[in-house]
């Protein structure tokens, strides 16, 4: 890796630096805008980079991906509308913080967590791409099924107010995800003859509808109360609310480290995606915290956990791409085209044939992480002012952007119908206190679990004994059982007397007050 030094020399020239910084900025802005996400941003920008130098082009595209993973925290915190589904957990605690006048604090922590997660994940990519990728190959469908089962154990804690309703929401999530052509039999499920539903309900329009548009509906109904709150926030702010204190840093440091690790690991496994990473990190942090019931009311650790994992997924999802030529995520798949267009064929050959270019790209990525800190900081002071604007001006704007974001997925108005359907669904869910977090998790993990299960049955030749050939899977299954048992034991002393509801009675007031969905 002495090429890396050369790589830095190549990258640290004004033109390349400009384009990488431009990419990060564009990404950050796109991420901050509800409705527009990194996949759209990167795909739309590929033609732009046609006649840039390869390093500048690739640096810019990757910069967009990184920037938007960080920027998505902004709208999550300020407007309770995550810029992307993977920032949904950020909103759970970020928005309450903003409503308490601590928007700057939350934004800063979000940015720091994002940058740290992103930077270390990039380092992992650079140093460990090849060996990691080969280990990742050991994770086949059988192992994946076990891992997914394990991650489901953290769902319970994310139900918010009512475990029962949280599980109902999760079941709905799984159910909706079955709509479409089933992957093994290719039999349509619940498509009602509509070809548009053959590929199932797309995550982006669904999430935009459920998280962003529904939130706008809710806030529209609360204009007066929100405006009063905003007045109060603008008038009385104490400086401690605008920075991250040392004590908070100490509390969040382990959280960020954990989030980075979780995000990096999830990113390497193909097909899981950033949402799984951030949810898992948030769930774990909540479970391991001394005050789990406070999550959802403004725990800054929640923001740190979600954002560090959310950002860590992006560079590590490039690991299978660089090392093996396998695109493990939507971004990676889009980037493959860009790579090939610029003469770099991702895969093992890449390191042998073009080590210099690879080093350049690595250097550009590290540079992008650093630049993100600067750009995020500058943009935030601008964005934070948004919270001063009355909601009635913001809501229509957000609605427009959501429509654009949903439409761009498929260039067809059908996505907007999907968005509106889930907006209504999400609105009802929030108002009736059904957790949208568990719905999302069910929606994302459910189909993957079913599909890996089907694959496992075939791989194991319909014979459970063959499971013995898959030690990693067995390890995770044991972990799942152990976690469930530990949760069961740990929860019992805290079981309140009111059946069907978790936590003491006053909690319901807080829940209906902040409408964060928990």
């Amino acid at each position: 890796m002495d090429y890396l030094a050369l790589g830095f020399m190549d990258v640290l020239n004004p033109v390349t630096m400009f384009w990488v910084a431009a990419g990060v900025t564009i990404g950050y802005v796109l991420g901050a805008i509800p409705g527009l996400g990194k996949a759209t941003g990167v795909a739309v920008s590929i033609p732009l980079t046609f006649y840039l130098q390869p390093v500048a082009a690739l640096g810019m595209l990757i910069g967009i991906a990184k920037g938007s993973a960080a920027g998505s925290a902004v709208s999550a915190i300020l407007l309770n509308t995550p810029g992307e589904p993977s920032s949904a957990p950020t909103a759970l605690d970020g928005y309450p913080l903003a409503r308490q006048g601590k928007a700057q604090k939350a934004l800063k922590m979000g940015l720091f967590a994002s940058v740290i997660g992103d930077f270390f994940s990039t380092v992992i990519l650079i140093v460990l791409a090849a060996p990691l990728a080969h280990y990742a190959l050991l994770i086949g469908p059988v192992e994946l099924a076990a891992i997914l089962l394990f991650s489901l154990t953290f769902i319970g804690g994310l139900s918010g107010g009512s475990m029962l309703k949280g599980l109902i929401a999760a079941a709905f999530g799984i159910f909706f995800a079955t709509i479409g052509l089933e992957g093994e039999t290719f039999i349509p499920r619940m498509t009602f003859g509509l070809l548009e539903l053959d590929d199932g309900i797309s995550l982006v329009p669904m999430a935009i509808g459920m998280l962003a548009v529904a939130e706008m509906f809710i806030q529209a109904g609360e204009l007066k109360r929100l405006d009063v709150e905003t007045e109060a926030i603008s008038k009385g702010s104490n400086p401690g609310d605008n920075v991250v204190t040392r004590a908070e840093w100490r509390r969040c440091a382990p959280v960020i480290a954990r989030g980075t690790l979780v995000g990096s690991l999830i990113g390497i496994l193909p097909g899981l995606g950033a949402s799984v990473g951030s949810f898992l990190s948030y769930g774990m942090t909540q479970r391991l915290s001394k005050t789990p019931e406070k999550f959802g009311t403004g725990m800054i650790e929640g923001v740190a956990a979600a954002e560090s994992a959310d950002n860590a997924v992006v560079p590590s999802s490039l690991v299978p791409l660089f090392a093996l030529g396998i695109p493990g995520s939507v971004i990676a798949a889009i980037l493959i085209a860009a790579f090939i267009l610029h003469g770099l064929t991702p895969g093992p050959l890449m390191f042998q044939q073009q080590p210099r270019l690879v080093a350049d790209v690595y250097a550009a990525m590290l540079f992008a992480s650093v630049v993100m800190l600067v750009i995020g900081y500058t943009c935030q002071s601008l964005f934070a002012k948004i919270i001063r604007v009355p909601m009635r001006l913001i809501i229509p704007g957000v609605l427009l952007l959501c429509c654009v974001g949903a439409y761009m997925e498929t260039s067809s108005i059908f996505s907007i119908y999907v968005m509106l359907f889930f907006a209504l669904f999400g609105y009802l869910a929030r108002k009736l206190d059904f957790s949208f977090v568990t719905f999302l998790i069910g929606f994302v993990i459910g189909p993957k679990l079913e599909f890996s299960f089907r694959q496992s049955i075939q791989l194991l030749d319909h014979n459970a004994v063959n499971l013995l050939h898959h030690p990693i899977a067995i390890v995770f299954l044991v972990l799942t059982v152990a976690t469930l048992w530990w949760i069961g034991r740990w929860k019992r002393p805290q079981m309140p007397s009111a059946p069907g509801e978790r936590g003491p009675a006053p909690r319901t007031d807080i829940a209906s007050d902040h409408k964060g969905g928990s």
Partner: protein
Amino acid sequence: MRRANVLSGMVLTAFSLIMLFVVIPWQIDPAPAGMISTRLVPNMMMIAIAVMSVILVVTNLKSAGGADGPSPITLADLRMVLRIGGLFVVTIVLYLLTGPLPAGFALVAGGLLALGERRPLPLIAMPALLLTALWLLFYKVLGTAIV
């Protein structure tokens, strides 16, 4: 919330039963032999929802007796939902008939109106600004590529 819980529980129970016995068999063909049934997961989920909704209803009926608290969805909420819903209908119709620009304009201006904005300046300036900004972001960003 309790009354709302009972209501939502009952609605969900009815919904899941209809799905279970009518919609799923109608919409999902069975899988060929040797593969996991295509109806398995949807059925499992609907059964789970049915069972849990019944529990929801029962536990919320049982704890009746104390004060309930205000209904989570007020009439004012519903009115707002209808207003914005109507706005979307208008937007979509405009889009299908005329195109994205008038539709986008209507969405923003209409939204502002629906939320109580009456001053003419924001009503015209905001949609114009937003549409221009979008145009800039996508058009210009691609356009400035001329280094």
